[in-house]
Each structure stands twice: as structure tokens, then as C-alpha cells.
């Protein structure tokens, strides 16, 4: 979760404002939302992902399912795919998850009934970057119609995203091999500070004519973690197909949570449908993204100033909340035990944990770990 420079959670100012508006609106009640969610939320959420001028939206071939966070959106999509994709109830369809990935991806697809979950090459530990060739090779050799979970931006946990040129290569292979793109978009706006930039990959795939799913989370970019606000965006060939897909997703939702929670969706819908509040929100998002970007550049410059062995440009080249530092398990243990700095055994740090007050200490500690422990 995001933290301020004081190391505190941050409720976005625009969220506070909108919550007050909602509290003061006596016409509102606590009635059930429709099964697929609050209509104003669904339409706005998908519009954010696909862009105001999206051809898919213009052609009325976009569907949306309000979900319990990004996880809920992934789960509804997975349950639908297991029932209806590549045949009926074809649990054998391979599902590819990046190596590494958010560990819950595996569980979501497994619990949805898929029997064959594989990894695709992603992180190159030696060069501390994307293993593009490994990734493309895996896509070439994947069985036709395999499902690929793609991180739309700010890859979790490596922070390493394909460049636009690399995305183009990925899309070309996926098209040729008839692979299904299931995007996980948990950090739109939060990664670069720009909603459009962070949605580039999803929009490119849409422009290339793909049918795809995009699981969106508003936990981070709206700071609405515990309200569970998410959206599954469905892009299909035409309105008729999307309508039938949504009708079946409705059945899945009905046996999972019946209808989604209203508070978080109201906050997001109100914000996104008011030009003024929307601008305010974009400002809040940029504040968060900029702080993380600042911490990245400050950490890197300190390490380089200290002359810490190795190269540290990956710290600023990576994007989003997380960074794969390249520290090995022994060095991580040193950080935890000797320096009381907590990070994952994989060397992943949460950039949000850095503050102007602790930057020096963290940089020095990394320096010690790298020089003392091999």
C-alpha cells in the first residue's frame, strides 16, 4: 500500500471530499446494486482503461462487471474462461503466469478450475531486466488458445515492463498463435503518473483487434483498498457477443457474491463523472506516482555516490510500487537481521516504504549488504 513521506497511509483528498458529498446526500440509501454493479461505475471504469476515444467503446463492444477489487475481477474472468473459453468447461486450457508474478494469480486460476497453470519467462536475474526472448519463445511454443496473464503496467513484483516496441512484438506473436490476453491492471496512473501512458499496452491490443479481458483495481490509484473496488472490462468482437458473455458472467457473480458493495463504487463513479473531481483525482494520483519516482531516483543516486558495487540504473528504469533490487537471499537476510530493513527474500522492496528520512540509512545498508555479503 502507498505511504506518504511520513510513512503514513494516505486517504486521497478527492476521496475525502466525495465521501462527504455522499454522506450529505439524503437521497441515497443502502439498496442492492444490480448484479453486475453500479452502471455509472462500470461505464466510467472501462472508459478509464480503454480511453475516451476507444474504438471498442464507440462500437459498443465493451462490457463491464463491477468486482471485489482486482482479485474479484480476475476470479470472475477466470471462472468465465473455464466455463466458456476454448470449448465448454475445458479445464485443460493452459494458463500462463509470468515468472515471477503476484503469487495469488496461480491460486485464482487454480480455484477457478484450471488444471494446467504454467509460467512464462519474464525476469532475467542476470541482466536485471525483461527476458524478452524467453517470453516470446514461450509464446511461440505455447499450445494454441492458451491464456496469458499480462501485467498492464508496473509488473508485480519486478517493476519491469515491456517497452511499447516490445509490447508490439508480444502482440504479434499472440495474434499469430491465437493466444488469449488477460490483462491485470492494478496500477493505472500510479505507475508513470499518467493514466493514458499506463494503459498503452491494453489499448494497443484493442487497436490490434484482440478480444481480451482486463481486470482493473482501484485499490492503489484511488487508495480505496478496503472498499474492494474493481472492474472486469470485457472487449469483444461485437455487442451481441459481449451481451451474451455478460449474461453468463452475471450467473457467476450471483453464486459468488450476488451483487457488489456500493460504497467504493459510488466514490469512484462520482469522481470519474465530474470533470472537476476527475482532474483533482488525476492530481492526487500524480502526487503518489511522483513521490515513488522521486524515491527511486534518490535511492539510485545515493547508491551510485557510495560506489556500491554493481549497476543501479534498474532502480529508476523499473516502475511502480515494487523494485527487484537484485539482492540475493543472504544479503536480504543481512538487511533484515542486522539493519532491520524488511524486504522479500526475492530482493523485492516496496518503494512506498522509502521516505526522505530513511533514504540515507537504506542506501548505506544496501551498500553494506552488497560489499560484506556475497
Amino acid at each position: 500500500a502507498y505511504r506518504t513521506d511520513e510513512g503514513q497511509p494516505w486517504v486521497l483528498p478527492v476521496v475525502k471530499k466525495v465521501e462527504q458529498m455522499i454522506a450529505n446526500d439524503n437521497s441515497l440509501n443502502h439498496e442492492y446494486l444490480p448484479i453486475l454493479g453500479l452502471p455509472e461505475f462500470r461505464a466510467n471504469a472501462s472508459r478509464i482503461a480503454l480511453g475516451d476515444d476507444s474504438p471498442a467503446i464507440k462500437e459498443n463492444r465493451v462490457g463491464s462487471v463491477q468486482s471485489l477489487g482486482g482479485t474479484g475481477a480476475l476470479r470472475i474472468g477466470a471462472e468465465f474462461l473455464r466455463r466458456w473459453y476454448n470449448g465448454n468447461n475445458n479445464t485443460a486450457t493452459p494458463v500462463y503466469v509470468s515468472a515471477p508474478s503476484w503469487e495469488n494469480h496461480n491460486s485464482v486460476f487454480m480455484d477457478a478450475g484450471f488444471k494446467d497453470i504454467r509460467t512464462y519467462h519474464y525476469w532475467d536475474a542476470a541482466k536485471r531486466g525483461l527476458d524478452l526472448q524467453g517470453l516470446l519463445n514461450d509464446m511461440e511454443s505455447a499450445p494454441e488458445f492458451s491464456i496469458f496473464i499480462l501485467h498492464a503496467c508496473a509488473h508485480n513484483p519486478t517493476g519491469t515492463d515491456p517497452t511499447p516496441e516490445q509490447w508490439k512484438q508480444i502482440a504479434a506473436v499472440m495474434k499469430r498463435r491465437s493466444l488469449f490476453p488477460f490483462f491485470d491492471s492494478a496500477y493505472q496512473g500510479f505507475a508513470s503518473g499518467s493514466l493514458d501512458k499506463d494503459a498503452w499496452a491494453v489499448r494497443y491490443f484493442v487497436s490490434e483487434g484482440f478480444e481480451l479481458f482486463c481486470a482493473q483495481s482501484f485499490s492503489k490509484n484511488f487508495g480505496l483498498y478496503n472498499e474492494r473496488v474493481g472492474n472486469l472490462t470485457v472487449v469483444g468482437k461485437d455487442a451481441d457477443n459481449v451481451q451474451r458473455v455478460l449474461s453468463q458472467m452475471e450467473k457467476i457473480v450471483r453464486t459468488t457474491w450476488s451483487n457488489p458493495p456500493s460504497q467504493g463504487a459510488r466514490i469512484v463513479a462520482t469522481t470519474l463523472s465530474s470533470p472537476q473531481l476527475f482532474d483533482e483525482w488525476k492530481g492526487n494520483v500524480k502526487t503518489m506516482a511522483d513521490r515513488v519516482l522521486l524515491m527511486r531516483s534518490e535511492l539510485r543516486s545515493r547508491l551510485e555516490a557510495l560506489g556500491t558495487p554493481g549497476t543501479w540504473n534498474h532502480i529508476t528504469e523499473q516502475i511502480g510500487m515494487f523494485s527487484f533490487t537484485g539482492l540475493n537471499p543472504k544479503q536480504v537476510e543481512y538487511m533484515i537481521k542486522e539493519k532491520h530493513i524488511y524486504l522479500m527474500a526475492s530482493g523485492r522492496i516496496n518503494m512506498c516504504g522509502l521516505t526522505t528520512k530513511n533514504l540515507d540509512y537504506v542506501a548505506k545498508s544496501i551498500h553494506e549488504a552488497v560489499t560484506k555479503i556475497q
Partner: protein
Amino acid sequence: SSWWSHVEMGPPDPILGVTEAYKRDTNSKKMNLGVGAYRDDNGKPYVLNCVRKAEAMIAAKKMDKEYLPIGGLADFTRASAELALGENSEAFKSGRYVTVQGISGTGSLRIGANFLQRFFKASRDVYLPKPSWGNHTPIFRDAGMQLQGYRYYDPKTCSLDFSGAMDDISKIPEKSIILLHACAHNPTGVDPRQEQWKELAAVVKKRNLLVYFDMAYQGFASGDINRDAWAVRHFIEQGINIVLSQSFAKNMGLYGERAGAFTVICSDADEAKRVESQLKILIRPMYSNPPVNGARIASLILNTPDLRKEWLTEVKGMADRIISMRTQLVSNLKKEGSSHNWQHITDQIGMFCFTGLKPEQVERLIKEFSVYMTKDGRISVAGVTSGNVGYLAHAIHQVTK
């Protein structure tokens, strides 16, 4: 071509269809008796005062929005368990239970269904009363279970077929799962009397069945939370380690906030901890962690003496209004000159009433009188007001005389 060419259009939801047709109707006297939500005597949604107060208190606290634990808000889950089990419950005091927050009743049922599928290896069979809430079947089916039934509602008397139920239940294979509605049976409104619950507990114990209670209307049925939880508590006292799903949609009017809980009564606190760990493993790949708003409101109400007192009064108010509408409907039918026995309307309890009306009669009610209900003759008494109960009685009399 599309990946989805072969995807069939899902069947329209029958209850939603009722509301859709009602909305299109231009008759000023129209009545929507399909609605599964409480309405006040003006036919309007009712936000409880204690809920408004709790919301104001929450807003003033200016809390952050950090994720809840996977199992939910601890103050909420503890209070939910205590509400169901009773503060003097040995099971509650000893800590031999685990309660996780669920997405209202549906989400709690689903967590339980998934848990049984994964860990209850003795049987795949879940026995539902005939009839039961329409969504029970697909929930258990999607969780990988199989559905069976036991006799419950007697259409000839519009009441409980107790001997049929006892007969069927006594023949259920050992270690099967049986689902029971704790109070205010949906859709019939027919509940066993306490003496009958005692016999049901005995036969269920004899057959060594796993009991799954669905309690969606505690407080809302009789107006008394302890009375409505009597069956749940009795079973536990008889040594039956039940599993239980609770909803706060109706009794706190928190429908869209999705506040609910799933409880497993265990042998001891250690078993409860192990069960909890497995429930979390099931929840995480579904939605990671639950929504805070409804749980916070419910928790504040249950844990703040003044608010809790106010809530008990308000929930009794809702239950009393429903009971009063039942009484008025029967007396109005008598005034219309109906010679039928309508006693079941006042014998039944909770939001719903199985009128006993046949599909042809229901169709006439819809077409000729703009009175909307589901084909099975179920009405939501919550949709009846002192302003329209006379019209309803008149319409029913016309199609049944």
C-alpha cells in the same frame, strides 16, 4: 469471428423479471410484491436510524482505508458470532468457533460451500428443504456439490409437512450435509415450532448429518433476536457442531454494503485456528479481503450499547409492521367476503408469504390488477402497506372466489 460465438444467452432472472414488468406498468395502483427488500409503510426503502448514527460516528473517526485482514474486521466477526450464538454460549465463550466476514449471505454461503467441498470428504450431497431459496442450488453446485431435497412445505395446508420432513431426514445417508433455514424460511415463511426443532435436532444427530444453518433474518422474523436464533443455539447445545451463514442485509438494512459472516463450530479452539487458516486460503483467490463499510457499521451498532438498543427497537419495528400487514391482509380478505382459509398468511413469518395462489391466479393478479409477484404465489409482505393492503385483498378475492 469471436471466441464467444457459442456462448449462450443466460436465462433471465425470474425475480428481476417481475420488477422489470412492474416498472413498465402505468397503472397507478400497481404493487411490487416481488421485492426482497424491506419497505416502510409508504413503500419506501428504510435506512435505519442506528445505521445513520453509526455512519456519522465512522465519518468523524477519519479512519484510513487499509486492507482488512482476509478473515475480515475482528470486532465485526466476534460480534456476529455472539449475536448468533448468544453471549452465554459455551461454544462462544470457549472460543471453539471461527467466524470469517463474508460478502453478505451469498458470499458467506459460498465460502462455506467451498470449504465443505474441499474438507468434508464424507459426502458431496447437500440436502435442501423443498422449496428453498432459488440461489442455494447454484451456489452449492458451483462449489462442486450435489443437491438433494427433503420434504418441507405442504401445499395442501400451506404449512410445514413435519411428518414428511422427519420421514425424509431419517432416511438421509449418514454424514450427508443438511441445510436448514434458521428462521423466516425463504420462500415459504413456514418455520418449525420449537418442539418440532427439538425433534429435528434429534433425528439429525441420530443420522450424524453435518448441519448448515442459513440465518438471513435474525430479529427480522419475530422481532426478537434471541427467539429467531433459538434453533441455531439449541442444535449447538445438543452437541451438533454446525456451520452457519449470517446476513445483515435485511435486519440492518445494509443490503448493498454486503455485510455477512460464516461460522464453523469446532471441537476446540485449536481446531478453530486450523479451520480459520483454511478459510483464508479459500477467500484470498476469490476477492483477497472483504469490504469494510458494511462490517464497520454493523460492528459499531452491535458493540455500542446505545446503538445496539436502538437497533433492537428498529428491527422489532420492521418485524411488527410485517406482522401487522399479515393481520390486515387476512382481515381485509374476510371483509371482502372470502370464504377461503387464509390462516397461513398470519401463521407464516418473515418477509415472504406463500399465498397458495396458483399460476393462473397469479397471472390474473398481474394482468388485471397490476399486482406483481413470482409465479409460485410468493409475495413479499414488505411490499404491502396500510395504503394498499385493501386493494391487495380485493384483488386476491377476485381471482380466488
